[in-house]
């Protein structure tokens, strides 16, 4: 049997499946004979991993074997423990292993320590109470056990330096004893006294001494001793030397030690062995943080390593260069990196080096032109490997013009970008991310300087959309870019004639399976149909980086809420409390129904709409009762869903606006939107992947493209400052004139001053990335001014259905609108119809609306203002539905309604 199992191990090692035999290996460890048992343990540790099902069968045997009198059995069991015990089974063996720490045999103690170390790695909480045992074992008589104890201690110290500062003295004294050859001769290795223990100790000291002057001072003598004693002719001596250098570069700097470290490094670099060169480059990278001037004397060696045929050495050198980059040498280094990036085809490393190029370029770019060119190169060669964030960053930088106030420079930059992109578009195959950037820039600035005609740019964009017809994102970017260009044309008062290929493209997209594309295409159509004034306000030229103020707390609502409460409305009760209050069974049912509908999102896109709809009738109701507002305001307000800071709006309309937002907030909470406090259009967009467009969303996504670029806007003052310091500061090149000629001479304060900045940038990038959803939809206000309010009108008219259409037509005298965009209107009617159900559902479910009142109210209003068609329809439908559901409308006005109605 034993032979078979060994053969099975061999089979498994060669990469074949031997799982049929696992169970026999498990059986073998039950055997009494040590020989068989040991082979069984070996096979099990090689076959199984810690999550395997058979582990459960092994734990029991391990427990038994750990108690065995024969220490070899215990050792075999401990070996298996290290490999096989997982987080759940740790408690089963832990007490026995702790007992074994006091075993008379040092081999057992050692293995028990290692097993505990393994447990610590797997779940640090399980052995946290045993830390004192490790400290005790450090004083073990056997150097092997002491050496093994250093492994768990190293991990412990890595996680929490401060609680082990008291051990510095003991570590130093141990290291001293080791260095003075106090250990048994058996631990010598190539005439070095216990080098592995020395290395481990140096690693620990490096951790303990980092930025701790007091602790470091204790170490200086012993580290200095080791530097002197190390025999640099043997490999292991160099290993210890290298570890010393690492230690010196980590602890509080000491001049003398730094000198000897620099000596050792120069010896490494001058050596013929590639291994030592490699270690030297690595050590140089570590030391350079503390004393940057030492790199200077090794320039030639570094350059040699860079030219070396050895790939590993080359990469290491690039790593070093990356660490030494500053504004004076960034061009050289990044060029080199890109060259190297082109020459390799290892995706893992390519990604890494590309992101490094981007990082360096962002940090030290001497000029904007250079930056854009560098980014182009990076995108071209490694586009699919670069983070999409980088692309957004590039767009933002082009849009914001690097924070310099010089407008002409900005426009120059943009036109140069446009030119280079038009040139690059000629190349056959480009990565998707890069194409997105190109499309965006062409859309935004393609026609800005008047050098290229709109038809030329649009032709190019159409080519892109056709050439990459299986990439939805690129197509979407292209369509939006087209829309922007046409919008600019219209706004400039020029006549727009679509190219034939553009027409065919649009037709294709209008029938696209991708709703996103379809929607964008419809938007394009709609925009082209509008007049110059309207278009200009929808898509203002070069407005992609205007600030958008968002008042998330909705503090401007306070007055209104106060007013409502004074009038007898109940204060808003948060969802959590409210559900607790509902004890009528009927309500509960409703609640459940709702909850389930949230769980299963078959009607995902209806949910958000229900609030859109739900908001309309009460809001308009309220306003009729409270303030006579010109009816023109309603539709816009209700359909646009966001506050519109209209220039011409009067007091009444602002009031209305505010109210709407308040409602939105309240209702938004109740319905558990995936994104809780954002307004509907966001949730629409997220859920909307497959849905039709609703009013707010159309309005919204019409300008979505611009938002994309605008997502960082909220923090823009800070960002601008940052960009100025990053790109303005270093590129002033006062450094260049001072130390210009030495390309590899790093200046410490440059390096230092950039470090925090880069981290800041990362931080701000993070926030900006998180922002988009909110901003996207809150962003609307600035883009939309009064003019677009025309659209919602039309939308509304679409809703009115034949009966009310006449009156609405009379009211607005813009009948043309009805025929103008029938598609969109169709959609609206559809969606509202769908939403009505939910809407009334919610109303009846949550607040038991006074149906009679409601209907009465709406009908009177209907009479008064016939243009608000949906209300009648709405309420009628609601009534019907409520009856269907079986809620008897009570005459009491429930909380929710009251506070909305005021």
């Amino acid at each position, binding site marked *: 049997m034993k032979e078979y199992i*060994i053969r099975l191990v061999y089979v498994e090692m060669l990469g074949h499946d031997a799982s049929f035999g696992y169970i026999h290996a498990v059986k073998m460890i039950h055997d009494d004979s040590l020989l068989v048992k040991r082979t069984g343990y070996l096979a099990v540790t090689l076959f199984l991993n810690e999550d395997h099902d058979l582990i459960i069968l092994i734990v029991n045997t391990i427990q038994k074997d750990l108690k065995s009198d024969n220490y070899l059995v215990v050792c075999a069991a401990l070996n298996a423990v290290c490999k096989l015990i997982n987080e759940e089974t740790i408690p089963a063996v832990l007490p026995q292993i702790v007992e074994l720490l006091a075993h008379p045999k040092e081999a057992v103690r050692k*293995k028990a320590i290692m097993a505990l170390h393994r447990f610590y790695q797997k779940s640090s909480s399980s052995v946290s109470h045993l830390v004192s045992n490790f400290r005790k074992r450090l004083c073990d008589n056997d150097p*092997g056990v002491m050496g093994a104890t250093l492994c768990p201690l190293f991990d412990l110290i890595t996680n929490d330096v401060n609680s082990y500062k008291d051990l510095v003295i003991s570590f130093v004294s141990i290291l001293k004893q080791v260095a003075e050859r106090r250990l048994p001769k058996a631990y010598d290795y190539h005439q070095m006294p216990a080098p592995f*223990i020395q290395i481990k100790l140096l*690693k620990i000291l490096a951790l303990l001494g980092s930025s701790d002057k007091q602790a470091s001072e204790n170490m200086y003598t012993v580290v200095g001793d080791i530097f002197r004693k190390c025999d640099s002719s043997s490999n292991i001596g160099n290993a210890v030397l290298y570890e010393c250098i690492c230690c010196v570069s980590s602890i509080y700097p000491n001049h003398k030690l730094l000198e000897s470290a620099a000596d050792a490094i120069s010896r490494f670099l001058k050596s013929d062995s590639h291994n030592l060169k490699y*270690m030297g480059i690595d050590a140089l990278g570590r030391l350079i943080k503390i004393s940057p001037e030492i790199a200077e004397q090794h320039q030639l060696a570094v350059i040699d390593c860079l030219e070396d045929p050895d790939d590993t050495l080359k990469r290491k050198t690039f790593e070093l260069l990356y660490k030494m980059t500053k504004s004076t040498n960034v061009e050289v280094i990044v060029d080199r990196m890109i060259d190297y990036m082109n020459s390799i085809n290892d995706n893992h490393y390519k990604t890494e080096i590309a992101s490094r190029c981007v990082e360096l370029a962002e940090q030290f770019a001497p000029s904007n032109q250079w930056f854009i060119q560098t980014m182009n190169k990076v995108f071209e060669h490694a586009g699919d490997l670069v983070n999409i964030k980088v692309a957004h960053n590039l767009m933002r930088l082009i849009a914001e013009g690097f924070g310099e106030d010089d407008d002409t420079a900005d426009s120059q930059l943009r036109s140069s970008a446009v030119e280079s992109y038009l040139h690059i578009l000629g190349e056959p195959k480009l990565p998707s991310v890069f194409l997105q950037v190109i499309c965006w820039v062409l859309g935004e600035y393609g026609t800005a300087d008047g050098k290229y005609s709109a038809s030329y740019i649009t032709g190019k964009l159409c080519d892109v959309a056709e050439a990459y017809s299986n990439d939805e994102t690129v197509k979407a970017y292209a369509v939006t870019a087209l829309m922007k260009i046409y919008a600019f044309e219209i706004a400039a008062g020029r006549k727009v004639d679509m190219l034939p290929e553009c027409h065919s493209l649009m037709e294709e997209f209008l029938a696209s399976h991708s709703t996103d594309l379809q929607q964008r295409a419809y938007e394009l159509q709609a925009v082209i149909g509008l007049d110059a004034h309207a278009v200009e306000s929808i898509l203002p030229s070069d407005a992609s980086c205007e600030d958008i103020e968002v008042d998330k707390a909705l503090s401007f609502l306070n007055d209104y809420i106060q007013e409502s409460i004074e009038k007898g409305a109940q204060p808003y009760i948060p969802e959590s409390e409210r559900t607790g209050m509902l004890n009528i069974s009927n309500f509960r049912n409703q609640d459940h129904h709702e909850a389930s509908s949230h769980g299963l999102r078959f009607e995902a896109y209806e949910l958000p709409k229900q609030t859109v709809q739900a908001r309309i009738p009460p809001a308009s109701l309220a306003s009729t009762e409270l303030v006579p507002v010109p009816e023109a305001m309603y539709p816009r307000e209700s359909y646009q869903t966001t506050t519109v800071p209209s220039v011409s709006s009067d007091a009444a309309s602002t009031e209305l606006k505010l109210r709407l937002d308040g409602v939105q907030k309240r209702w938004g909470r109740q319905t558990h939107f995936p994104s809780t406090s954002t307004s509907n259009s966001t949730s629409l967009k997220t859920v909307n992947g497959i849905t039709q467009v609703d009013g707010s969303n159309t309005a919204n996504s019409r300008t979505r493209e611009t938002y994309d670029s605008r997502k960082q806007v909220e923090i823009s003052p800070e960002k601008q400052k940052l960009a100025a310091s990053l790109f303005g500061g270093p590129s002033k090149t006062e450094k260049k004139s001072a130390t210009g000629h030495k390309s590899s001479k790093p200046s410490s304060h440059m390096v230092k001053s950039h470090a925090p900045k880069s981290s800041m940038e990362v931080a701000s990038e993070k926030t900006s990335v998180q922002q988009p959803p909110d901003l996207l939809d809150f962003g609307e206000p600035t883009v939309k001014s009064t003019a677009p309010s025309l659209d919602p009108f039309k939308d509304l008219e679409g809703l009115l259905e034949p009966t009310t259409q006449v009156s609405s037509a009379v009211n607005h005298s813009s009948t043309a609108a009805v025929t103008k965009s029938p598609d969109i209107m169709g959609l609206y009617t559809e969606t509202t119809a769908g939403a009505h159900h939910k809407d009334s559902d919610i109303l009846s479910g949550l607040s038991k609306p006074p149906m009679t009142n409601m209907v009465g109210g709406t009908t009177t209003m209907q009479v008064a203002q016939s243009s608000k068609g949906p209300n009648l329809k709405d309420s009628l439908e609601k009534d019907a539905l409520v009856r269907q559901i079986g809620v008897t409308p009570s005459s009491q006005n429930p909380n929710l309604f009251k506070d909305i109605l005021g």
Partner: protein
Amino acid sequence: MIHFVLLISRQGKVRLTKWYSPYSQKERTKVIRELSGLILTRGPKLCNFVEWRGLRVVYKRYASLYFCMCIDEDDNELEILEIIHHYVEVLDRYFGSVCELDLIYNFHKAYFILDELLIAGELQEPSKRTVTRLVAAQDSLVETAKEQTSSITNIIAQAAK
């Protein structure tokens, strides 16, 4: 920490593998294929370290066998090189001028020795003497156990007659 130990012959045949980090069988074959392609093609004068998937692989060639160990980025490569050498020295002492055939026919013994040297990806015993003593103790125990079992089976066999 050492993630795995790999012994491959110059022809790319696997002679011994030991995984200290979890890898599925599929990943293992992939790793071995990638690494043997990477390491076997390297020239003799290049350095003994290879960067691979964000990790380092330290390898050393002894006759026709490549000993590879995969380590974290911040480990001391030279030290690992010496651990490999340490292992080879112990093997040498145990087998008496070790060769590839020793490892092929007694690979389980090579495993036992490796287990005494490395546990859970860390070097547990830096002393050659201790390791050899332990392995010898196990072997002698096995021998006595063998004799015992054979004598017992003899007795039983005789009794059965």
